[in-house]
């Protein structure tokens, strides 16, 4: 907030005050909706990809209304990269874990040996785990794609 006030005072940020205020208020709700889409993928249209893209869009909106530095203040490049790796690792790690636990590759019901919930419930839960992984990876990559493409690889103010 302080950063925002300083920079607005310096008249460095592009868009009008109305857009900036609206975006600032919207972003938490966009992110909440993204999380909802990810976790509610079992019961309604949605899932990791869709939710991940919405989460990524929240950062894109920030860097459009303010500038890229400002959005990177909320999610640094390093954190973003780590999120992407963790997301992909969750999926492949779950897959490999299933194989190590004695089942087939990606056979979530094998995880029943870890925490007994019943094989069918584990299938449902396994799908949820990998969807979260997908969501993290997609969010991180979407944000990174916009940042890199938008700033010609310099990671500065951007568009």
């Amino acid at each position, binding site marked *: 907030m302080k950063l925002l006030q300083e920079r607005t005072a310096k008249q460095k940020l592009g868009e009008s005050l109305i857009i900036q205020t609206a975006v600032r208020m919207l972003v938490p709700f966009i992110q909440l909706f993204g999380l909802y889409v990810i976790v509610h993928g079992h*019961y*309604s*249209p949605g899932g990791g*990809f869709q939710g991940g893209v919405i989460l990524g869009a929240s950062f894109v909106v920030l860097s459009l209304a303010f500038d890229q530095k400002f959005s990177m203040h909320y999610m640094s490049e390093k954190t973003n990269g780590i999120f992407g790796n963790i997301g992909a690792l969750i999926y492949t790690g779950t897959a490999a874990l299933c194989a190590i636990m004695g089942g087939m590759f990606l056979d979530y019901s094998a995880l029943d040996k870890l925490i007994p919930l019943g094989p069918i419930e584990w299938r449902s839960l396994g799908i949820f785990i990998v969807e979260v992984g997908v969501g993290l990876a997609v969010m991180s990559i979407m944000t990174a*794609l916009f940042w*890199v*493409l938008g700033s*010609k*690889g310099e990671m500065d103010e951007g568009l």
Partner: protein
Amino acid sequence: MEQFLELVVSKYNYWIYVILMMIGFYAMIGKGNLVKKLIGMNIFQTAIILMFVSAGVKQGAKIPILNKHEVLEHGIDIATIVNPLPHVLMLTAIVVSVSVTGVALAILQRIYREYGTLEEGEILEKLGK
């Protein structure tokens, strides 16, 4: 003629996808601007998505989100639900197409940085010098 028209009408979705595909394909191989080629690629991929998704349609069927308890107790009539499989496949294909587009855009920026233009002819001219 009437027979032909009937054929077209009963499979109009495939005709639309072929036309879309031809637009995209022509842009990919016939246009000189690299961005237009990329847009052509996206149109081509959209055409394929249209083909798959339209193949999953059933007349008057609902979306493939079921009521868990009802299904577990009574089972389900297959004809009332659209095919889920083409949707799954196309989710994957969409992600792949997004990824390719992203990489291609990055490469285009590199090319622009290098040559200052995205017209194929002009780039080749600069290379020839």
